[in-house]
């Protein structure tokens, strides 16, 4: 199918983009278009004005310093995936992007677009929550910054107000010596995950010292697993702490049923991913 007719504009500044967004109640930002255009092709989304931000000055930048990586709203996933400095500073970026779509999708799709779209099964929102990323937003009242933990409110639902757009996201570098794991269970490479996990793990002397765990594909916003984080502290393969699986199952209690899997399966899958991530992080930190 084809998109229904709409009005198109291509602003060259963020201010123009904000103004164009305000010109209609059903205006939408177009960056990579890899989620929006299929939805428009299927006529699943009602759009009267498309605001193409691909050529807004400065939005396609990827900035990297010792403290983290800042990705502009028009920077493609391929660009970030191939950026060695970004991968060295925030290893989770490359680890997550490898799971995102396929080559052709990543060549157009943007990192910020994935955050604004907030698909519950997407990797990048979970990475943003796990790393404590900050989303930069512009709107009629100026700019503001939103912690990723407060940005994702539910499936396809974010803290963006009407007429606001994401301009950049800042991923802080994880703690020195930590290992970032992005793992998922999906039916086909490149598909959205049935269940997935982003884990930032710090370890010493062969045991987990602390971990930050965020599940995705569970139905709503990226899901912090706080009880499991506590249960994982001190965990080692030969001294597995009791109750880790139960802790994950409790934290992920809201996982939903759909045609691909039951909520129960999703909870068990995330629990298995947590153990797999802990083992792999310990192996990784010993090798380092």
């Amino acid at each position, binding site marked *: 199918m084809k998109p229904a007719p709409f*009005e*198109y504009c*291509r602003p060259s500044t963020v201010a123009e983009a904000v*103004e164009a967004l305000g010109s209609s109640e059903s205006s939408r930002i177009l960056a990579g278009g890899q989620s929006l*255009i299929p939805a428009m092709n299927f006529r699943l989304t009602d759009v009267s004005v498309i605001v193409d931000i691909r050529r807004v000055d400065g939005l396609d930048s990827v900035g990297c310093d010792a403290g983290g990586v800042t990705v502009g709203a028009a920077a493609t996933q391929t660009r970030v995936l191939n950026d060695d400095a970004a991968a060295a500073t925030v290893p989770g970026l490359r680890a997550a992007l490898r799971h995102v779509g396929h080559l*052709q999708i990543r060549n*157009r799709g943007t990192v910020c677009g994935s955050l604004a779209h907030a698909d519950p099964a997407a990797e990048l929102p979970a990475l943003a929550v796990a790393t404590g990323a900050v989303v930069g937003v512009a709107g009629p009242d100026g700019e503001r910054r939103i912690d990723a933990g407060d940005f994702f409110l539910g499936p396809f639902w974010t803290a963006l107000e009407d007429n606001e757009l994401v301009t950049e996201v800042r991923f802080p570098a994880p703690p020195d010596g930590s290992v970032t794991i992005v793992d998922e269970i999906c039916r086909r490479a490149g598909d959205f995950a049935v269940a997935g996990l982003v884990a930032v793990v710090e370890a010493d002397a062969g045991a987990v010292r602390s971990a930050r765990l965020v599940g995705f594909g569970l139905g709503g916003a990226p899901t912090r697993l706080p009880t499991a984080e506590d249960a994982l502290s001190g965990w080692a393969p030969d001294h597995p702490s009791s109750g880790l699986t139960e802790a994950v199952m409790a934290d992920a209690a809201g996982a939903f049923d759909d045609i691909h899997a039951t909520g129960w399966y999703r909870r068990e899958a995330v629990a298995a991913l947590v153990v797999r991530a802990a083992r792999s992080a310990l192996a990784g930190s010993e090798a380092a």
Partner: protein
Amino acid sequence: MTTIETAAEVDVEVRINGRRHRHRVPSRLLLSDYIRDVVGLTGTHVGCEHGYCGACTVMVNQDAVRSCLMLAVQADGAQVRTVEDLAPAGSESLSPMQQAFHDNHALQCGFCTAGFLMTLESVDPDQWREPERIVELLSGNLCRCTGYQNIVNAVAEAWGAYHGDGGSDDG
């Protein structure tokens, strides 16, 4: 405050296979339909129209993209390459990758083939070497005829041909 103008019709100027095209088109026109219906290059096939099958893959500024997930206006000012450009101009011969597909029975109905070829041609030929890398590279293209193995074989043979060793022993 300037007022930004919006329009339901847009001017598009694209270079496709080295030839310049200028048209005024509806803003909602997909790049795939622009290539096929406006420019008349029907080698690019349209399968699912929601980015799943990969049949419509073309190159935009050297990158493999799904032309059904791009508006024609998004390609304004870009260089586009389609399957029609792969074989050497003015000759009956095929590109090494096309020849390898032919020799290895890497297509049956041929509907998906242009998408596979454009994905493969968009990357450094060194990526045609490792079977694991080939499989990963082609994971965004569906084929319902071949079962993929002959395609993987063809890509490996094309890598050999590219490096001038004549490809595999074809007895």
